C-alpha cells in the first residue's frame, strides 16, 4: 500500500534527479510549466513548478492554472516516478490520465524516460 509519505518521498527523489540531470537541463531550457499530480487511494495532490527545466517549487496542494495534470491511483503514480512502470503503456491502458497539450505530454514522457534510463 502506497502512503502519502511514500508519494512525497518518491516525488522528492524524482525532483532531485531531474534537477541534477545535465541532459534534461540542456533540452528543457525553454520549458516552464506548472504540473499538478493527483492521486486516488489515498487522495493526494502535489504541484510542481518548473522554470526553464528546473523544478523550483513543490507544494503539497492544488494550484490554479496547471499546464499539465496527471491523475491515477497512488500506486500507479508511485511506479511511474520511481521508474518501475512505463507511463506510455499506462496511458494507452487508460490507467493514467494526462490532461495537457500533446507536446507537453511528450516532454513529460521523455523526462521520465531520461531520468530512469
Amino acid at each position, binding site marked *: 500500500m502506497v502512503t502519502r509519505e511514500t508519494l512525497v518521498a518518491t516525488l522528492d527523489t524524482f525532483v532531485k534527479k531531474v534537477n541534477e540531470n545535465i541532459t534534461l537541463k540542456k*533540452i528543457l531550457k525553454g520549458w516552464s510549466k506548472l504540473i*499538478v499530480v493527483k492521486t486516488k487511494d489515498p487522495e493526494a495532490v502535489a*504541484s510542481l513548478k518548473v522554470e526553464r527545466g528546473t523544478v523550483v517549487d513543490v507544494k503539497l496542494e*492544488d*494550484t*490554479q*492554472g*496547471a*499546464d499539465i*495534470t496527471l491523475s491515477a491511483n497512488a500506486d500507479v503514480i508511485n511506479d511511474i516516478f520511481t521508474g518501475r512502470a*512505463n*507511463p*506510455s*503503456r499506462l*496511458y*494507452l*491502458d*487508460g490507467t493514467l*490520465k*494526462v*490532461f*495537457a*497539450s*500533446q*507536446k507537453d*505530454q*511528450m*516532454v513529460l*514522457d*521523455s523526462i521520465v*524516460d531520461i531520468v530512469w534510463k
Partner: protein
Amino acid sequence: MSELKKALRMRTLVSASAGIALASSDFPALIKAATQVGGWGIVFVVVCAGIVTGLVSLSFAELAGMYPTAAGVRVYTKKAFGDTTSLTITIFYVFFSIIIASAETYIFSAVLHALSPALSARLWVLIFLIVAIAMNILGIEIAGALQDILTYAMFVGIIGLSLYAILSAHFDIASVPFAPLGIGGFGTAIATTIFVYTGFEWTTPLAEEVASGKSVLPYSLPISVGLLTVTFALFAYATMGIVPLSQMVHSPIPHLIFGQSLAGRLGLYIMAGISFLATMTSFNAGVMGNSRLIYALAREGSFPKFMSMLHPKYFTPWIALLVIFSIIAVFSVTIAMHPKAFLVPILVAASIETLMYAIISFSVISLRYRERDTARIFRIKGGILIPLFTGVVFTLLTLGILASSSEYVAILFATGLVLSYLYSRYVVPGLGH
C-alpha cells in the same frame, strides 16, 4: 481544483472537429458519390450520411468522456476487445490515416498543378511533402483563434459560393435527374459520402483539454457533423446545377471546375484558396496526431523503439514523422503516376473509416457490460439501441463499398488488415522492449 489555462470553448471544439474533416479530397469523394446516384439525389445521400455519422458521434462522445486520451482508438478497443484485437485495429487505423494523407497530398498537388501547370503533379507532391515534413518536425500547428478564423472562413466561403451558385442565372437543376441509377446506388453513395466526415472524431484527444468534468466535447461532435452536412449538401446541390456530372467525374479537382464554371478565374482562385485552407487544417492535424500515436505505441513497446525518438529541440517524433512521410510519398507519387486511380485511396479510406465507426459502436456496447461502473460524463440514451444500429449500419456500409468498388480497393483493405493482424500477433511479442 485546478483549472486549465486554455479552456476550450464550444466554438473552438466545433472548428477543430469540422476543420479536420473538411479536406480537399472530400470534393472528389462527394462527386464520386454523386455518380453512384447519378443525379441531385446526392443531397439526400449527404443528409442520410450526416444522420448516421451524427449518431456514431454519440458513441465517440461517450467513449471520450470515459477515457479522455489522445490515443482514443487504442484505449477504447483495448478495454472492449483485449490487447491483440485492439493493436490490430490501431495499426490498421494508422494505415488508414496514411492512405488518407496520401490521397490528400495527391489531390492538393493536383490543385497546385491546375494553378501552375508548368510543374507536374508529381513534382508538386514532392514540394508539398517537403514543406509539410518541415512544418511537422518544427511542430508548427494551427491552433486556437487562428484555427477558428481559418476554419469558419472556409465554411463561410463554401456555403457562400454555393448559395451564390444556386441563386445565379447559370443554375439549372431542372435538367438534372434526381436518381437515374435507381435506389440501389443510394447505399453505396452513402458509404462513399462517409469519407467527407473522416476526422471529425479526431478532436476526442481534446477531451483531455476539456476534461474538467463539465466538458462540452460530447455536444460539439454532433454539431460539427451537422455543420459538415449542411455545407456538403449545399455544395453538392449547387455543383449539380452548375456543372454537368460528366465533366467532373474523372477529375481530382471538381471543386476547381465548379469555381471556374461559376465565376471564371476568380471562382477558380477562391476554390483553390478554400482547398488550401482545407488541406492545411486537416493534413497537419492528421499527420501530427498519427505521428504521436506511433510515438506512444513505440514507447509502449508495440513499435520499434527507435520510432519513439524525439527531436531534442522541438519535441516532435521526427523518426515516426520521417517513416510516415516516406510511406505517404510512395503512395502519393504512385497515385500521381496513375491519375485515373486517384479514387482508389479515397474508397479504401472510406471502407476503413466505416469499419472503424462500426467498431467504435460495438466498443460502446461491450463497455456498457465490461465497464459498468466507470464514470461517464456523457451517456447515450436508449440503452444500446443507437450503438447497435450504427454498428450494423456501418458494417453493411463497409461491405457495400468493398463489394461495389474495383478489386484494388478490396485488395488494399484486406492487405492492410491482414498485415496489421500478423504484426500484432507475431512481431509485437518479439520486440521485447
